[in-house]
């Protein structure tokens, strides 16, 4: 029973590790700000869920440890979406423009997206 519990905990922790690394890469590499907010929001809810559930499998059934893990998990699951929502709302009301990616795609579709108009030849 204990070995099965440790196996399940190992699988959950491995999945949490994968999610954490992919979340970090996506927050670094996503093209626009709002897509980065989306990546961070998903990452901040899924990674604590997997990792803290995996740690609960290693708790040997100690009640105080399980209660603390449950408290941390509940608090993170409640506050991470609120933080992401407040961040996106503050950025939008603060004037950070949306639709940057669509604009960039349109410019690339129209050819030589980043060329300045002053580069046109005179003759």
């Amino acid at each position, binding site marked *: 029973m204990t070995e099965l519990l440790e196996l399940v905990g190992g699988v959950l922790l491995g999945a949490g590790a994968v999610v*954490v690394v992919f979340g*970090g890469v996506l927050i670094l590499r996503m093209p626009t700000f709002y897509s980065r907010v989306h990546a961070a929001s998903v990452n901040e809810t899924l990674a604590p869920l997997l990792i803290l559930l995996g740690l609960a499998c290693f708790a040997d059934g100690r009640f105080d440890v399980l209660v603390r893990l449950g408290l*941390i998990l509940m608090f993170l699951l409640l506050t991470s979406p609120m933080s992401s929502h407040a961040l996106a709302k503050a950025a939008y009301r*603060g004037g*950070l423009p949306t639709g940057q990616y669509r604009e960039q795609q349109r410019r690339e579709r129209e050819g030589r997206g980043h060329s300045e108009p002053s580069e046109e030849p005179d003759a």
Partner: protein
Amino acid sequence: MITVTLVAVLVCMALLVARAISGTSVFERVLAINSFGTKTVLLIALHGFLTGRPDFLDLALVYALMNFVGTIAVLRFTSYGQLVAFGSRRTDGTEPMPPARPTGDATG
């Protein structure tokens, strides 16, 4: 497996520090630091289990509380210009939240 997850969290924290340094606006930096705080909570919990002392979970809980309050405080400060706004109406007659601008100067 706890060690592997610990290293993964450390890698993610390094990437988030890179994002916070190379960010172009204050909101990107707040985004990176907020995720960094969540990863700190996970790091403390994993370290407690790795060393066989799960008492570190109390510190992780306090870090989670501080991270949320700090993020909301910074966002309130950048949106309202002050930390505490009593009620929805200010004394100088201005709107509590500025209207959305199409193109802004929220850099820095």
